[in-house]
């Protein structure tokens, strides 16, 4: 019995597409290796640059908002609050900044290999996680400075991290598929992220906001993930059930961006 491969104009089913992504997973490592090597070639500090930026931001937030403006917290100290918030936020913002280029950077490979193109934004997101691993590890140290030594919530940490991971991949996938059409997004993303950080409880707690603004914050999936992350690490005491609205939005967005990318899979090559 001979097995055949068929190439035709029919749309690939989602099952076949997923199967093909899993078949081509061996390519993820060399693509990431290549991207990282290209990114840091001929630099003296190399990967340190990715760590420097978030740590500088955290230090500045602690100095200005923690000591000078004295933002009131319900619970815990300000350093661990900013550190946990910024660790998540940095992943989101890095994924958003870098995914726009994910397909364009690899256009030669796209023209040569018949692999599902969603691999490239996935690789970008994994690269961002790998670059932020130090920041995340530092964020975990807040466990030792907490007032309550109740570590039972830690069992939720893997769930939250996996959720964060999947959502960041979805974010990257969506942005890369959109940027292909019009490169405007490459310029727009920094502005959007700059605005969005003010509507996310990264360096201030939601408790100091007026009520009408709180409603909007609950719609923000970034906020949900950050608050959940803080809760599992014991930085905040409780999580408002309203944050689950954000999680549902994140879930819908994840499904949507996968479908969105899949629909454009075949025509991406025409826009490169």
């Amino acid at each position, binding site marked *: 019995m*001979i097995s055949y491969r068929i190439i035709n104009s029919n749309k690939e089913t989602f099952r076949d597409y997923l199967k093909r992504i899993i078949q081509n997973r*061996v390519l993820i*490592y060399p693509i990431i*290796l290549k991207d990282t090597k290209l990114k840091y070639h001929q630099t003296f500090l190399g990967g340190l640059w990715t760590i420097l930026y978030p740590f500088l931001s955290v230090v500045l937030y602690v100095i200005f908002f923690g000591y000078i403006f004295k933002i009131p917290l319900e619970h815990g100290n300000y350093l661990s609050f900013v550190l946990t918030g910024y660790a998540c936020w940095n992943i989101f913002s890095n994924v958003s900044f870098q995914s726009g280029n994910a397909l364009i950077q690899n256009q030669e490979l796209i023209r040569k*290999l018949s692999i599902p193109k969603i691999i490239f934004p996935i690789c970008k997101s994994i690269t961002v996680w790998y670059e932020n691993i130090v920041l995340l590890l530092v964020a975990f140290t807040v466990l030792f400075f907490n007032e309550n030594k109740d570590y039972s919530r830690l069992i939720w940490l893997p769930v939250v991290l996996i959720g964060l991971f999947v959502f960041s991949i979805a974010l990257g996938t969506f942005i890369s598929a959109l940027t292909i059409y019009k490169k405007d997004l490459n310029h727009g993303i920094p502005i959007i992220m700059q605005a969005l950080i003010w509507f996310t409880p990264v360096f201030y707690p939601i408790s100091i906001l007026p009520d009408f603004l709180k409603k909007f914050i609950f719609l923000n999936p970034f906020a949900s993930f950050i608050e959940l992350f803080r809760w599992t690490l014991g930085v905040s005491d409780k999580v408002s059930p309203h944050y689950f609205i954000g999680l549902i939005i994140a879930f819908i967005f994840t499904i949507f961006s996968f479908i969105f990318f899949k629909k454009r899979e075949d025509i991406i090559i025409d826009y490169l």
Partner: protein
Amino acid sequence: MPDSKEPYIECSNISKHYSIQLNLKESFKSIISNKRYTKEGYYALKDISFKLHRGDRLGIIGANGAGKSTLLKIISGVIKPSSGSIRLQGESTAILEAQNILYEDLSGRDNIKIVTQLIGISNKINDDELNFIQEFSELGPYIDQPIKYYSSGMKLRLTMAIYQFIQPDILLMDEVMAVGDVSFRNKLIASFNDSFSKIPVIIMVSHEVNDIVNLCNKCLYLKDGEMVFLGDVSDVYKKYSIEHLEKKSKQSIKNGLKIISHNQHQIKKHSEKILFSFTLEISEPLNCSIVFYLNDTRGPVLFDSLLFREKNEYQFAQGVHEVQISIHSYLLNKGTYFAKCIFANPQDDNHIEQEINLGEVKVISDDWEKDEKWNIHPKYPLRPQLEWKIESIKQQ
């Protein structure tokens, strides 16, 4: 178990249609008028069908924009066809290109590691293979330098070394021969007998008809996205060259000069005279100079020849004339040669009035030469019979 009777690749009615994108004004119009306002677009490929069996080497020829590369990309799965389907037995397909496979900013070693994984050679290249590539590419200590400091020859050698490991089920080569220098070409041709010999099917695109004749057994001739001819390599070759000649000799009536006939394809032995002839119809008396050129398939002109040595000019009277040019025997080496004549105005040497292609001649070896060793590589275009003299001066 792979079956050798079943076709390895079966391509049926492949078409690729590209629609032309509407610009802003037109798409606005289509919204306002509530009609689908579309442009027709064009077919890059139309109804391509062929079957290849295990062991087949297919060469694809055709002018620029004939759809050769598009066809390769469809077979490799990079782009989808608009209609039709391809059935393949092989699991893996690889496109071989001479350019753009290396990353300029990475070192040679990193390039070997990454590129071999990306083009699907192995999951992880081991030290023996790395050493082999290093030796094959003759890079020596430069292997740890970024590729951008390499000479283009070094880059090609590295590329070639990486390709020695390639073992896909279907290998697609996109105009690889055109880029490399002579040694790169020779290495690549050698790989056909060596490391590529186990690959079930190779499909190659080339401008150079000669490469296809040498390396392939089947040939597909594409023209404007349509299949003109498919079959055994020697048949297509004839068809291709004739069509090229016809196209060129169509532009004829100019300044009262009309070419009626010329010979097209001849096969001569080394010891035979080669004769080119054509017939001219002159409608008004014409004073012009004629230059004869001979090219070989590699491109450059081998020599030119003037009508007369003293004054390169001929007074054509009104009427029909036959022109014959003969090349004496034992001048050309084995191979294929193309001849052309140029008619020029004697007052202005640069102004070419008319160019005629006189067709091609294939020189083959004489019967006695066939088994001789020195006849195997017709490296040089000329092998003239010279006057030799051997005398014994002192005998013991």
